[in-house]
């Protein structure tokens, strides 16, 4: 089969720098070499390919926009977006591992951590020696994280942490967790909890039909003693974790586009080869409608992410803009995955093609990092000034 050539109907490649293209192609080559050949098997077995963590560190997928001083590559946000696009073309679960490590663990330590925290954790997170997780969601507080009950009390030079986080990506394998918890006066703070601290456990969540190659679990804190020096000093309040989500959602907007591209590419190739009623199914109007709508939506989503990348590089991307792109791109990716699956007929339900895996993965992507509904409410609030959340 020919190598993958991503859809580029509006010649957006002309707008990318040579360096952007090199970043994208390097990620694509890595996915082709290390992820595509194994990922279906891991997803089928619901196993986390933890050997990839070190490789992701080596290739530089963790914290690429963080400065070199702390182990990052000092690249721009467009580069980060392109990496996420390519990784998710491979698998949304692997992309989730990257997003969490880069945007939800390294970013808060980089942006709000003390110098000592940055030096201690960032270089090891960048190489993949440490895997991180991000604990915001709780069993009773999902879309409404501000209501969280996980809390800590001061005790000399330490704090004592209690509570539980649920649906946490990377949790079962993580070495460190950035956990959001309330202090005695109810203010949300970020705390770095390290594997091995007494009373800290990470049970795995089983029986997922989605993101099966990504490990999800709980973070349980039973009187965990954490030194005060592990509290992120730079920012507190709900705005702190939400700013991390902005960074992750930016990557997801690109990532979902990657999944959509892969489904479209598979459906297009298949439809040109599959003969029914004496001709390739690509020759039937109903199939062309699907393909034409897919490429239209992909092109619109590409324009959205490209402009968002520019805005992010200029420090101007707003939460509202990021929400819109995350919501739109995940939605079109899901629709494309579903249509593409039908175009493959029976073959579409097998693991011989990536479509069904993408489709099931995207069911998590449409829920995490702000549900589809919540992003609509963010846009609604942004344009009307009226809060419809409560």
């Amino acid at each position, binding site marked *: 089969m*020919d*190598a993958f*050539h991503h859809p580029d109907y509006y010649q957006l490649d002309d707008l990318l720098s*040579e*360096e952007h*293209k*090199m*970043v994208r192609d*390097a990620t694509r*080559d*890595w996915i082709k*070499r290390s992820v595509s050949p194994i990922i279906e098997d891991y997803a089928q077995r619901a196993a986390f390919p933890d050997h990839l963590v070190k490789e992701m560190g*080596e*290739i*530089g*997928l963790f914290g*690429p926009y963080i400065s*070199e001083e702390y182990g990052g*590559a*000092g*690249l721009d946000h467009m*580069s980060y977006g392109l*990496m996420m696009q390519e990784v998710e073309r491979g698998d949304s679960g692997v992309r989730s591992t990257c997003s969490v490590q880069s945007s939800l663990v390294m970013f808060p330590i980089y942006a709000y951590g003390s110098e000592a925290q940055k030096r201690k954790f960032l270089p090891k997170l960048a190489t993949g020696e440490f895997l991180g997780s991000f604990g915001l969601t709780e069993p009773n507080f999902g879309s409404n994280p501000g209501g969280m009950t996980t809390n800590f009390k001061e005790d000399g030079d330490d704090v004592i942490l209690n509570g539980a986080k649920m649906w946490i990506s990377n949790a079962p394998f993580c070495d460190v967790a950035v956990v959001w918890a309330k202090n005695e006066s109810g203010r949300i703070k970020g705390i770095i909890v390290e594997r091995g601290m007494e009373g800290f456990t990470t049970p795995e969540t089983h029986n997922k039909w989605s993101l099966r190659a990504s490990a999800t679990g709980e973070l349980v804190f039973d009187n965990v003693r954490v030194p005060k020096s592990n509290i992120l000093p730079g920012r507190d309040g709900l705005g702190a974790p939400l700013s991390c989500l902005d960074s992750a959602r930016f990557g997801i907007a690109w990532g979902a586009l990657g999944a959509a591209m892969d489904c479209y590419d598979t459906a297009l190739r298949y439809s040109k080869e599959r003969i029914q009623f004496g001709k390739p199914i690509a020759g039937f109007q109903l199939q062309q409608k699907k393909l034409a709508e897919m490429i239209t939506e992909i092109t619109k989503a590409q324009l959205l992410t490209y402009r968002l990348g520019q805005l992010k590089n200029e420090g101007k991307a707003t939460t509202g803009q990021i929400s819109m792109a995350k919501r739109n791109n995940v939605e079109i990716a899901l629709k494309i995955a579903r249509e593409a699956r039908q175009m493959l007929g029976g073959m579409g339900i097998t693991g011989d093609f990536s479509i069904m895996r993408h489709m099931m993965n995207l069911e998590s992507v449409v829920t995490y990092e702000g549900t589809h509904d919540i992003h609509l409410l963010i846009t609604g609030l942004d344009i009307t000034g009226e809060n419809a959340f409560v």
Partner: protein
Amino acid sequence: MNLLVCISHVPDTTAKINFDAAGKALDATGVQFVINPYDEFSLTKALHLKEAHGGSITVLNVGGPETEPTLRKALAIGADQAIRINATPTDAITVAKELKNHISANTYDLILCGQESIDYNGQQVPAMLGALLNLPFVNACVDLTIDGSSANATGEIDGGHATYSGSLPLVVGGKKGLVEEKDLRIPNMRGIMTARSKPLQVLEASESDTATQAIKFVKPAGKSSVKLVDSVDELVHLLHNEAKAI
């Protein structure tokens, strides 16, 4: 060690190749270019040698500005500096002379090329370069060890291998075997970032004439449809009477 890797910029192996209307040149529209795969084995070998013996790697290309992303990629993979000799690589002898002019004005311990470039597959430049430099040349090199100023190089020959020993400098036309496919390196993000500040020098060409000119390129005829036959007798009959091949 002062290592030189000559890099050519060629269409991706999966690219659909077309020529311009006159059939005189490649139509590069929509074609992605890559480091010539044979050169990539040589570049990776150079990285291994540098890691073992220290030194510096220069990558050298004869080409127009469009080849710079390919050189940048070589820098991102780990070369230390790049040089582009600004000329259109029209034919093998012109390219070999340009390379020779640069190399003889500098000191390199080892000159690594690919056995051939996968665009025109001429298999001429490395051999011409060895001759122009008056240096030993090992083609289709599948193994190379360096010990101080001497080298052992194994090249493929018809039906076997030949191993030579000699002293540096040496010109090598490398291929798979020199390193394995799994050894080829994908540039990492830090490498891509550092490549920004590595030197890429552009030198003016010194040769003005080209020795040959392409008159016409023609693509091979498309494959005709397959005919399935049921028996050997029928096959012989068809080969004899229809295809007139036997």
